[in-house]
């Protein structure tokens, strides 16, 4: 099926099998491999991207469902070589170790702050309930998100 998707500001037209998941389309068709697959059951959140500005688990969406939509992936966050404040904060606060959950974490938390620019620790932790990390114990991820919020968000 033919689909048109605006990915990271660039118009894409592709012919995909109906059963192609959005995450596979992004990774295999467009080569945007920053978005990760960590589970089969929509639990881990490693595949989180933004669709029309809202966080989405791209493993639970068909590519054909994204037809006509705007998609932002981790590759689309940095602008003109400048890291997004959330990316910078994850780096500054050691909010990552193996890095596999990190793109999804960053996509989820940028959306979180867009909805709620001044979350307290509890709200940040609840905002992360759809993303799993096995390395950091979340301590420094929470710290990284709080630091961005404190600095005035994105």
């Amino acid at each position, binding site marked *: 099926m033919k689909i048109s998707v605006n990915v990271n500001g660039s118009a894409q037209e592709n012919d995909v*099998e109906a*059963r192609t998941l959005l995450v596979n389309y992004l*990774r295999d068709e467009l080569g*945007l*491999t*920053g*978005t*990760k*697959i*960590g*589970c*089969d*059951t929509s*639990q*881990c959140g*490693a595949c989180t991207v933004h669709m029309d500005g809202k966080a989405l688990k791209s493993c639970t969406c068909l590519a054909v469902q994204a037809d006509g939509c705007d998609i932002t*992936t*981790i*590759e689309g*966050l*940095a602008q003109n070589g400048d*890291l997004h404040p959330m*990316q910078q904060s*994850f*780096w*500054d606060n*050691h909010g*990552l*170790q*193996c*890095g*596999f*959950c*990190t*793109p999804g974490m*960053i996509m989820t938390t940028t959306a979180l702050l867009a909805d709620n620019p001044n979350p307290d*620790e*509890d709200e*940040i*932790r*609840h905002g*992360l*309930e759809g*993303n*799993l*990390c*096995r*390395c*950091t*114990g*979340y*301590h*420094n*991820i*929470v*710290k990284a998100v709080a630091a961005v919020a404190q600095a005035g968000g994105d």
Partner: protein
Amino acid sequence: MAVVGKAVKRKEDPRLITGEARYLEDIKLPGMTHIAILRSPHAHANIVSINSERAAAVPGVIGVFTGQDFMDVNPLPCPWPAGGVDNNLNTPRALEVEKVTHVGAGVAVVVAEDRATAQDAVELVDVEWEVLPAVTDAEEATFDGAPQLHENAPNNVCMEWDCGDQSGTDAALGSSDVVVKQRLRNQRLIPTPMETRGCIAQHEAVNGEYTIWMTSQAPHVHRLLFTAFIFGVPENKVRVISPQIGGGFGAKIFMYPEYVLTTALSKKVGRPVKWVETRSENYIATTHGRDHVTDVEVGANRDGTITGLKVRTYANLGGTLSTVAPGIPTTLYGRMLSGAYKLPNIYCHVTGVYTNTGMVDAYRGAGRPEATYVVERAVDLVASELGMDPVEVRRKNFVPADSFPYEPSGNLLNGLSYDSGNYDKALDMALEMTGYEDFRAEQAAARAEGRYLGIGLSTYIEICGIAPSAWMFGEGWGAALWESANVRMHITGDVVVTSGSQSHGQGHETSIAQLVADELGVSMDQVHVQHSDTLGTPFGYGTYGSRSTAVGGVAVWRSLQRIKEKARAIAAHEFEANVDDVEYVVNDEGVGVVQVKGSPDQSKVVGEFMGIATSAAGGWDLPGDMEPFLDETAYYDPPDCTYPFGTHICIVEVDAETGNVGIKRYIAVDDVGKVINPMIVDGQVHGGIAQGVAQALWEGAQYDENGQLVSGSMMDYAIPRADLLPSFELGRTETPSPNNPLGVKGAGETGTIAATPAVVNAVVDALSHLNVRHIDMPLTPSRVWETIQSRSNGGNS
């Protein structure tokens, strides 16, 4: 300007936060094929027949293969049988041929042009099974009449192993004021690195060479196993590359059937073959951890002095053996049972057992969390029996700070000794951070209101920097455990370090660079740490057991000393001075210079273009027969392990109505020896605590009576989430290890090892007024609630 000891931001992060890092699944090769594996749906069954006709007919399928097609490939090796005893070894094959002993064992494979087609076709492979009765509990599997898994393992026993002093311990328990007995279950865990496993193999027929990209924590070990054990080809015929790795926690150390299968297929089909594990496969086909059933007896006198500890453990090894499975519940478990305590008598007997469950091997702490759980629970059981404060029982039995090196009794450590420690100091700091006395008052007040607060301690030690090769050889380990490193200073002054260690989240590229920057006097930007490709790095045994800094880091340090020696010799030649008069100093700006002592005008920078780096690389004017280039390789095999320690304290509130446990505070004081990057060390501790807490409260692999994994997805297996955990309060003491020149000990596993008993002790403490003495993990709401109910009705446990 020194950077060692500073929270330097990680060099590896830019590629990770932008999505540019290349993990295994991100790699594509021209002509690449994909596979799907048909796995046994039965826990115990004979394979009667396999018919692949329907699958082979699917358009896009290149071939369908069964175990019969790989009889020329050796079964997987088990290079760490339990030391000093007979082991009845049974290891998997690339695909099983006659029978399967756990759900998830592979029996057929489809190779196809794309992954979806492979997945479609594998559903059309028809297998006729003869289903056999299954057994999943390690102790029950040894009973008469239990289903028998392997002909060479009567009663399903792989091995019987013991350590310590049996008669002395029995005698001590017989003459103690009190003896407390308790059965403890250390439940099975599923490692769940966020990245599953995978493998891409390419075979070049013309020269018989394999290139294998794989999710490996130990690429050199994988190459060794491929070449020497599995394919019987020389070392140069296999190149193993670990790309960016998304966490391992032990599960990516081992050789697995799928790696062998993928590699063998690449030769068979003459095209690159890619296999990436799904999460569903990961839960049934990747190794699990823990799974012990233990009876502990601990004796003590009225004053709180522990007189003896006797431990009897059934260790579940799964249906077949993973690579180092027998070594984990023996050497890495039994030999650690003295904990932080001067115990006069210890004895441990372990039975390793086959059951119809997934393979069990090293996981995040590997044997040491299991040992620490037994010891730290035992100490609390003594305190409870004697009506003493658990803090006092610990202090009474600590190895005193002036007793190091300390050799546990009964030759428990088989000749090794604890290197250094000050256990009271870490305990004092943790108690002060907690406000222990204030908490006890708060607890009493809360109890009066019907609220159940509890506090739990874990004053742990661990064994890190797993090595000495000779010692491990005596423990049954079939290889060595030294590490090596090469350091090269290029003509520009940039330094490239290659290491046999493998970083999958630990930050080697940063912490090793810090070491190099300080030692040579170059900037962090000038240091480039490379690892994970057997072609470009010297041999190393890989990253696990918190050993990369304590062993691999010292190999780097040794290479650096040789670089410095050579730089001094070149400088002496240029200055026409005696080499003994030339010193290598790092000046106040952090720049490494060689200079003639006492004459600062005779000085030259080492790590810059036209500095000593260029003199060495150019080689135009070198002394005598000196070879060009600052390029040195060193090996390091330590004399002993390292022994980090600390105190973790957890405060919980148990919801009396539901049994739900909430973590209110978590305080951790760790002593990992000298710290290179405190930010990285803290991060390691945070992650470990989360795992340790999760084992205590939530995680647990569950099999039903047919050997089906009930907790087979993230919908059922409770990986901890951010909203279930608090922020952690960390402190640190620093007692250098005398066993290596860096004074480091290792920090990768302290959190996991310490946290689990701290949480369980806290929950038991919260319910101590109900005479609760123990609850088995995970302390799910229903289990805690049932305990409260039974106690409120006047029972005991």
